[in-house]
């Protein structure tokens, strides 16, 4: 009888000790899972914010590119020869009638 009791006590003791052992592991794993979950939530949040930033940057880039393109076009239009000629004429410049070629290396009076 006492032998049976002793064996029972021993079995219960072993079961109890393994139960505590597994529950410790489960608790530890749960903790790890919880930490990972928090990390995941944190990084997902960060990525979502970054995505928003990327979207904003992309739209800004497109807008700057368009502005650059428009400015280049404006610049080329304002530096076109027909535009410059029209501006020069309106500013009072006149087309030269005859080209005078001054020869020789000496000083030349310009009729001033």
């Amino acid at each position: 009888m006492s032998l049976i009791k002793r064996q029972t006590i021993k079995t219960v003791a072993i079961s109890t000790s393994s139960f505590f052992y597994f529950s410790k592991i489960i608790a530890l794993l749960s903790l790890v899972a919880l930490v990972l979950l928090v990390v995941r939530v944190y990084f997902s949040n960060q990525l979502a914010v970054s995505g928003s930033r990327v979207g904003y940057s992309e739209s800004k880039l497109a807008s700057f590119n368009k502005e650059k393109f428009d400015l280049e076009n404006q610049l080329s239009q304002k530096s076109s020869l027909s535009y410059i000629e029209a501006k020069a004429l309106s500013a009072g410049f006149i087309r030269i009638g005859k080209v005078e070629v001054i020869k020789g290396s000496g000083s030349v009076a310009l009729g001033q």
Partner: protein
Amino acid sequence: MKSWRFTFLKLFFVFLLAGLTARLFYWQIVSYERLAVAATEQHLTTVRIDSPRGRIFAADGNLLVSNQTAFLLYASIPEIKKDLEQGETYEKRIEAIVNQIQPVLLEEEISKLREPGKLSRRDKETLSANLTLKIVSQLLMPEVVWVPLANKVPLPTKEKIGALRVKGLGFENQSERFYPEGTLAANLLGFVGKDTEGNDKGYLGLEGFYQDQLQGQSGKLTQEVDASGHPIIAVDTTAAVFKNGLDIETTLDRTVQYTLEKYLFDSARKYGAKEASGIVLDPRTGQILAMANFPAYDSGKWEQFKDVERRNSAISTIYEPGSTFKVITASAALDTGAVKTDTICPCDGPIKKSGYEVQTWNNKYNPNSNMAQILQHSDNVGAAFWAEKLGKTAFLEYLKKFGLGAKTDIDLQGEETGLIKKSQDWSEIDLVTNAFGQGVSVTSLQMASAVSVIANGGKLMKPYVVRKIITPEREIVNNPKEVRQVIKPETAGIMKELMLSAVEQGEAKRIIPKGYRVGGKTGTAQIPLGGKYDPNKTVASFVGFGPIEDPRFVMLIKYVEPVPIYGAETAEPTFFKIAQELYTYWGIEVR
């Protein structure tokens, strides 16, 4: 009691499981395709990446052709229908939409016309009715959800339509060609129209020749997005292949082009010429510095012009060169040794060949003329004398060596070959008439290129317009290419002096500005009509180069049907007006 509750619980779970299975079956099997598409649409976004057409630059780096944003106006039929008020029909709503947008689009369409101010009231009404019909028929198309209403709408028009706040209408970005220099070099640049599938495509000139390089390839970028539509950067994106059109840099000098056009167009109007063309090229490299045609057209309004107005007649129209061709005959005869500068031509009267009589242009004769005198008097009999000394075989061989009767292979779309009769088709008269440019046809470019041989020490250079293609990785440079040595350098030297004397002692010597040492030759060719030559309709031209010591440019000026009819009175004065400007521009010393 206990057993009943247990059975109920079991049945509950069985039905629950059956319900879930049925629902999953519905989602996974029955509605799979629809839901998969919906899911993809929800978490993936596709962005169209437009690849703009390559730009075209002048030699100084200034833009000749660029792109600007335009808009495609479209209608979404479901959105229009969704917005219908109670009792309102779709047709009634269309009528309202047309009444709102049609006047704005009509105004835009009229502004694009070649001469909007000259539009009659009746034409305007027709235009308006056609536009209304077009919009209505698009909106009434059966079984469509999206219809384009107007292409390439400019920003101001887009803003006007946007301000109307019409439900169901929207805009998509498009790109259209932009010409900062207006109509400058339009015939050389070509234009961008549509291909059979409605895509942009370049036609004629540079746009046509470099279509493959200039055209970009649009693509799509697919990326995963979050609930707010922002891209999720941790997930890979997939991009369909796309590439921007390549930019090209030309050899065109804006100032030379502008000067050429200014004087050529003004003079063509003054002489009442039907057509005119002009070319300025660098004989040392073959680079085209300027090329112009009259009447000019506007590449941005290309639909408003006829095919004949859009072509580059400097390379696409052939003509009989007349007396300018004598310099080719003279070069060949000198190079072979058939004649020398002091060889005397009897030249005392008309010559008869195969029943035809060959006369001088004014029926005056200059007996015992040497080469210089024959060129100065532009003597047809003298040129025939050289050709007969040279012989048919050698003459034909030299024409080929000068690049006549064959394309120059310039990098422009639409080049013609010219017309030189085959050896076996030649009669006795052909040798004589070809000697002074009759019965032979060339393009203006061929003629300018042939004369550049004389200006460049006897070497023929391949003419070209694009000197650089700019890819993202590198620049592909188009270097000058020597085609062949056509005549000996000594022959070229003698010809330069002969052409200088032809200018200084020629028919138009009074108009030559002092100190401008330019070699050249006039040409006045009657226009063949129905097998005969019309004496009052001519092609008047002048081809020359300067400065004579080290030619920097070769220029050809040509008028079709000018009044007066002679090259010496029309093309030559224009040549010298432009040459004076070029001398000043390049700082060439006047002696």
